[in-house]
């Protein structure tokens, strides 16, 4: 995995795209352009947040993801599911029923991400006790991690040096399974059931890791559909007793709704959700720390992971169901599962920034180009209509200066103004009488 190369899950289906510009306007990192009538993604800017998938009216943007049948390549099949799943079912508001239903998917062992939340919360608490120098940011939402790497490199040191809860849950499940069943790692397939393309991306290319933790990732949408199909079958039994020993109310709520304060009562913690709110907050921390806040838990999606792109239930309804289910669990467990045996909670290597390339490597050239961009920008109408194929007029000015294929005449307003002026000139020119004709007249 080279540092430079950036694997993305969010992809455009050129055949379906009609170039309507809808996606350009929502992309938080201005990573989209329309070129030759089709949307393209600027690879170094995209953070796989999936906002563009949500709005595309043509369903032309999708996320790469694995097919469920890849589990058959492994002898032992383990699944970590995003606990958001338990809020997706209208029919089942009972946790055990849902788990029973999932047992028909063909995995040998299944755990929710909430177990990762339970384990990592203890690690973070003891870290925060000794580190009160700045506002720390959780690594739970991979889109936020990448946003910071790409746009806020100065905040890299504010990120907690720990794995996100899904990776912790994965490491835990694998270690436990290997110990209990005496199996070798190479015979195990570890999978993740993801609520969003961003976490899928993090499966394919985990930041702060030297190798992949999960062997594959499935979308909640697809698995939900599968489960719906299983639900309709006659011969299923959903009342088997299942032991739920490592589930707590607060770990369930943190891993699904980002209810961070329930996990970190001795600290000041905040949940910030929705990519625009996240950006606003990061800008502010960058310009001066919020010393009174110890921890911020940030989620690209509105309402946290219940608002993930692959979820099918309304996030507010889903939240309500999860709160209901969570309230039947104890607030804490007597013994937190083995923490960091061989330290599987820390990131394997420090997170590194991945800033977008400066407009020129040489600073004085960069300044020159910035001037040119300003000059071009002055000529643009500042309507931010995106019809030119760049998200805003300023982006178009940048694209004109930095990319030779883009012209100021891609702006329909400038084009019309110019055509009008040309027409005026033409009219005036055409109205002049030919000097030769004039002479003839006089004779």
């Amino acid at each position, binding site marked *: 995995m080279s540092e430079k190369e950036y694997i993305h899950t969010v992809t455009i289906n050129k055949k379906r795209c009609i170039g309507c510009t809808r996606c350009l306007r929502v992309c938080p990192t201005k990573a989209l352009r329309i070129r030759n009538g089709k949307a393209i993604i600027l690879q170094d800017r995209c953070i796989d947040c999936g906002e563009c998938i949500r709005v595309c009216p043509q369903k032309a943007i999708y996320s790469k993801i694995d097919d469920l049948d890849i589990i058959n390549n492994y002898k032992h099949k383990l699944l970590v599911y995003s606990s958001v799943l338990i809020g997706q079912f209208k029919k089942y508001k009972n946790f055990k029923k849902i788990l029973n239903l999932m047992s028909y998917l063909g995995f040998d062992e299944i755990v929710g991400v909430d177990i990762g939340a339970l384990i990592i919360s203890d690690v973070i608490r003891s870290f925060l006790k000794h580190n009160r120098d700045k506002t720390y940011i959780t690594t739970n939402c991979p889109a936020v991690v990448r946003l910071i790497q790409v746009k806020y*490199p*100065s905040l890299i040191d504010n990120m907690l040096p720990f794995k996100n809860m899904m990776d912790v849950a994965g490491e835990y499940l694998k270690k436990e399974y290997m110990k209990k069943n005496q199996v070798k790692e190479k015979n195990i397939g570890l999978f993740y059931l993801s609520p969003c393309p961003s976490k899928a991306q993090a499966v394919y290319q985990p930041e702060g890791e030297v190798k992949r933790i999960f062997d594959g990732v499935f979308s909640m949408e697809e698995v939900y559909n599968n489960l719906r199909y299983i639900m309709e079958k006659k011969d299923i039994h959903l009342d088997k007793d299942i032991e739920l020993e490592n589930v707590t109310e607060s770990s369930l709520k943190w891993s699904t709704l980002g209810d961070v304060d329930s996990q970190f009562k001795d600290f000041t913690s905040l949940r910030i959700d929705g990519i625009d709110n996240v950006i606003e907050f990061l*800008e502010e921390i*960058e*310009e001066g720390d919020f010393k009174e806040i110890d921890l911020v838990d940030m989620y690209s999606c509105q309402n946290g992971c219940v608002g993930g792109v692959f979820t099918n239930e309304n996030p507010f309804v889903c939240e309500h169901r999860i709160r209901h289910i969570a309230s039947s669990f104890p607030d804490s467990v007597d013994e937190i599962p083995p923490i960091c045996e061989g330290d599987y909670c820390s990131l394997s290597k420090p997170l590194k*920034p991945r*800033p977008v*390339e*400066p*407009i*020129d*490597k040489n*600073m*004085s050239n*960069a*300044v020159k180009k*910035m001037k040119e961009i300003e000059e071009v920008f002055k000529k643009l109408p500042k309507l931010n209509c995106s019809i030119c194929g760049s998200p805003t007029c300023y982006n178009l000015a940048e694209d004109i200066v930095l990319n030779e294929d883009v012209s100021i005449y891609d702006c329909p307003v400038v084009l019309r103004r110019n055509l009008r002026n040309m027409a005026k000139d033409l009219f005036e020119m055409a109205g002049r009488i030919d000097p030769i004709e004039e002479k003839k007249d006089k004779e």
Partner: protein
Amino acid sequence: MEKILDFKIKGRDFINAGESTSKMKNYFKKIGISSKIIKRILVASYEAELNVVAHADSGVMEIFVDEDKIVVTVEDEGPGIEDIDRAMQEGFSTASDEVREMGFGAGMGLPNIKRNSDDLEIESEVNKGTRVKMVFNVS
């Protein structure tokens, strides 16, 4: 030396002070200045801007690029500084009670500017104004 940005500063206007910060930040990011240096430039410039807001009537901040240096000047019309060496000392402040109530006036601004810049020049004339020039090496 080429001017890249400028901002007007109004005395007593604590609320809008700092608006320049995000514009400067975005510009510096685009021309590839490292985030550590950006932070230093922003901290020093903000303190200099605040000194105009807190102690003077009005001023301008100008940002220049000079080969591999960023130069920030803040020039104001105001009371000027009587004894610059004294003003540079940590904890020295003549801030009014009103300014102190807003949480400023710890006498840490100028020392902070000194710490964050690679070169600092202050010229001042009593009852006329003050000019602060900060230089930052970026390469």
